[in-house]
């Protein structure tokens, strides 16, 4: 076997490897033998770094010298909910700077939850002559000036996607920086931007880019300009409208409806800010071919929503507000048999009383009627163990299940029991469950179920749950495939963490905030396990100024081969051998 492996010339092996895209497969290949490691590292074109602090730019560049596509993730997931203070980290500039010299042929950069400055964007625009794809997902730190630099300089840009980033919106003028000679745009998502771009510049841009497939406009684009834009891009596959609200005028409506009908390839719709029901029929002609519909910013009510979804027989993904109510979800279950993913967001998350009639029943209906449903995010105000068990039995193919009950610690509203058994049923029946977020009143028992059954679970989010360290221990000791664990406001302390310390090195990261992990335990972990960065976040001041038994505010532990980082703000401390001395 060894002889066979070494008898292939390198070029042949390289050619074979070029058909392997998956990171895990690539990693496996590189471990076969030294020569395969060498060949593979020279021909790896795409790298994914799930935690930008797990490895350093020089390390990546040293191993993989010919990379064309980089994907990096920065802040912990809970940063989305303001649990990570500003200035925590996740700066992309050091990466860009290193890659500017090392990867002059870099084509794609995809970033999530990172701090991107205008300087970084300008450096990208300057350094990579063949730059094609920029995706900034939930990023922040840059302004429209940085976007102008990208627009002006990246002649081969195909994709610019700013999904949900926080942009310092100085003006809409940046869009006009795309030169007239620029025609290679394939995908543009500016839905997060607030200010108005020049509509004529937009229309001209759209008109001269024949390969444009995805166009997500921002709210500032009024409805009466949408038809013009659509007419210039009938080949669009994905469209995000701007404001979907205007005075009802027959001519506006008919040109809009006509424009939509002309887009025969349209499969995905989003936007619909401030949608008025009167203009919804304009999209009816294309509803039957829609596979993805994002109405989560549309404030239309259940009657109109029901009418709409009932026509989308090919729908695979629906994001919607809870205005859809149980009755709309029943229609969904009846008409959309191809549904794979459902997300229901709360229209009034801070209201005490429910403003809509959306209950556990809606989710049960969909679980009954949609055999391919495997991904769920559901915000509601009440739940029962029975409903969860029914959903579990109906959908053993569930892979992502995220439930949020608006009130923390809400019990089964009928039996007043904890929801342990309901979630227990989920993990027991759904053997391929990869991601789980739990809600409601939960004791240590639910964690026992999870530890026993959720063997494929990779990401778990827990809030206001559990009674003791036993809960955490069940998860850490039982979930073999656990990669990301995020916990807030649970009574978990030192014991479970210390007992399962070795487990932490097999995971990408652990987040614990408002729990009971003591400073002493953090120090211990940091000292004993060198390849973990144990970061304590505490805005009360240095943890060393308090007793060791004092719990830390926030704890973020992640494995790394890069050692402790040095770009931390004043409220973050890394526990390692040295810090133990410094802080005590």
């Amino acid at each position, binding site marked *: 076997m060894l002889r066979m492996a070494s008898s292939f010339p390198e070029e042949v092996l390289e050619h074979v490897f070029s058909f392997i895209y998956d990171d895990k497969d690539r990693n496996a290949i590189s471990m076969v033998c030294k020569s395969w490691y060498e060949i593979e590292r020279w021909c790896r074109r795409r790298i994914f770094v799930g935690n930008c602090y797990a490895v350093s730019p020089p390390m990546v560049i040293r191993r993989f010298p010919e990379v064309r596509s980089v994907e990096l993730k920065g802040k912990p997931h809970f940063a989305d909910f303001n649990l990570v203070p500003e200035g925590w980290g996740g700066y992309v500039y050091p990466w860009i700077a290193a890659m500017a010299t090392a990867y002059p042929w870099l084509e794609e950069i995809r970033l999530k939850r990172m701090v991107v400055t205008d300087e970084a964007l300008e450096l990208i625009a300057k350094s990579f002559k063949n730059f094609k794809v920029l995706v900034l997902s939930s990023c922040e730190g840059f302004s429209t000036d940085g976007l102008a630099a990208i627009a002006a300089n990246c002649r081969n840009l195909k994709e610019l996607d700013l999904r949900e980033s926080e942009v310092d919106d100085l003006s809409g003028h940046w869009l006009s920086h795309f030169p007239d000679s620029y025609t290679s745009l394939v995908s543009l998502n500016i839905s997060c931007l607030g200010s108005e771009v020049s509509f004529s510049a937009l229309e001209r841009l759209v008109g001269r880019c024949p390969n444009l497939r995805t166009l997500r406009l921002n709210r500032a684009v009024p409805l009466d300009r949408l038809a013009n834009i659509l007419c210039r891009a009938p080949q669009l596959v994905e469209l995000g409208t701007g404001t979907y609200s205007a005075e009802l005028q027959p001519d506006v409506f008919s040109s809009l409806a006509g424009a939509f009908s002309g887009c025969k390839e349209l499969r995905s719709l989003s936007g619909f800010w401030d949608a008025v029901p009167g203009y919804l029929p304009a999209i009816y002609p294309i509803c039957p071919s829609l596979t993805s519909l994002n109405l989560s910013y549309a404030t239309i009510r259940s009657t109109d929503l029901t009418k709409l979804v009932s026509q989308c027989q090919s729908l695979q993904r629906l994001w919607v507000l809870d205005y859809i109510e149980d009755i709309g979800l029943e229609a969904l279950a009846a008409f959309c048999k191809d549904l794979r993913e459902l997300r229901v967001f709360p229209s009034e998350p801070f209201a005490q009383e429910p403003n809509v009639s959306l209950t556990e029943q809606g989710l049960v209906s969909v679980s009954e009627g949609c055999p391919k449903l495997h991904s769920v995010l559901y915000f509601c105000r009440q739940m029962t163990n029975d409903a969860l068990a029914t959903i579990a039995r109906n959908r053993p193919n569930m892979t992502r299940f995220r439930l949020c009950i608006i009130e*923390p610690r809400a019990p089964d509203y009928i039996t007043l029991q904890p929801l342990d058994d309901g979630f227990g049923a989920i993990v027991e029946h759904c053997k391929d469950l990869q991601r789980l977020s739990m809600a409601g009143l939960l004791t240590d028992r639910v964690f026992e179920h999870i530890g026993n059954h959720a063997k494929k679970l990779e990401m778990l989010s827990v809030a206001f749950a559990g009674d003791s360290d036993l809960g955490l221990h069940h998860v850490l000791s039982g979930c073999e495939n656990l990669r990301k664990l995020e916990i807030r406001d649970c*009574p978990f302390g030192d014991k479970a963490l210390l007992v399962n310390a070795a487990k932490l090195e097999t995971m990408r990261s652990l987040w614990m905030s408002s729990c009971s992990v003591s400073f002493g335990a953090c120090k211990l972990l940091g000292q004993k396990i060198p390849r973990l960065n144990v970061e304590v976040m505490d805005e009360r001041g240095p943890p060393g100024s308090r007793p060791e038994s004092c719990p830390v505010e926030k704890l973020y532990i992640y494995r790394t081969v890069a050692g402790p980082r040095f770009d931390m703000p004043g409220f973050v401390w890394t526990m390692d051998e040295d810090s133990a001395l410094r802080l005590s």
Partner: protein
Amino acid sequence: MSPALLGVEEEGQSNVSLAASSTSIDCISRNGCGLKERNYLGLSDCSSVDSSAVPSLSEENKNNLNLKATELRLGLPGSQSPEREADVSLLSTGKLDEKPLFPMLPLKDGICSSLQKHVISGNKRGFSDTMDGFSEVKGSLYSEKNWLFHSAGTESDSPQSVGQGTFPGSSGMNAMQLSRPSGAQSHMMKEVPQKVLQDRCHGANGTNLNQAGTSNNSSNAPAAKAQVVGWPPIKSFRKNTLASSSKNNDEVDGKPSSGALFVKVSMDGAPYLRKVDLRTYSTYQELSCALEKMFSCFTIGQCGSHGVPGKEKLSESKLRDLLNGSEYVLTYEDKDRDWMLVGDVPWEMFIDTCKRLKIMKSSDAIGLAPRVMEKFKIKA
């Protein structure tokens, strides 16, 4: 870090081991918020929230100050200690200016009080982690040396290695006992004072979680607009979008819009920004107090670089500067991208137009005020 400020006066807590400096008291009394003294320096918060229900504490814990009240809030880690609510009546409007981490649970009556037992007091727990308990664990860890090798720890090993055989039994709502579990380190909530429990239930029953400008009588029930940080887990982008949508829709009925309105707050010389939710305040007073607290650690050089172990003495003059209010002014950037002094327009108008906040040195802010008047003249 030597604390120079007087510790917080919590309910019934009389054990203050640190002397107050008179200067600091002066400064504080000049502070127009009417808030009690707070320890800004982030000292130990391991003191118990005083309560008869609290299990016996170690001496050390008793002597420490409760620093819950000093926490930075608003999109920041910070818990709402139960005692804070008792202090709410001292605030001018009686409304809470901070978002507690302690969730308000306006549940059905029967559940309310028992559920309160479940509620973790924000992130300031671990009081019953007595030093004894911890060293017990430590001892066993070191001696047994088996915790390091536990990946999927066996059942028999784990209780051993943590030095005790019992985990508190858990079943349903009685899992979290106020009484101290035998020998075990209980990380559970136990020290919610009885009074607060009652307050909480009062408030909880009669109020809703809708925050901005609710007309609920929330005199000692801050639950009216109390919100848990980062809950429900909705991205800011979505929250802000919802907020502006509902504002458009609700303007007619005059219903206050719900949802958060996060703006960034920067401060000259501070190493990093904060974000605050303007809807959690209803007056400039509240906003100003909250921001003072939030940025105090910068002015006293506490949260700066942590290269040096934090044992600096508080500079009295620095603190005076902060609390005096004359060194810094609060400014904001409005929709027209002009920088204005905060405080000149009615509050509602302010939150409507404010895009960003900045704490500037007074010297830098000269010339802002007149512009405001001009703007008004133009608009009027």
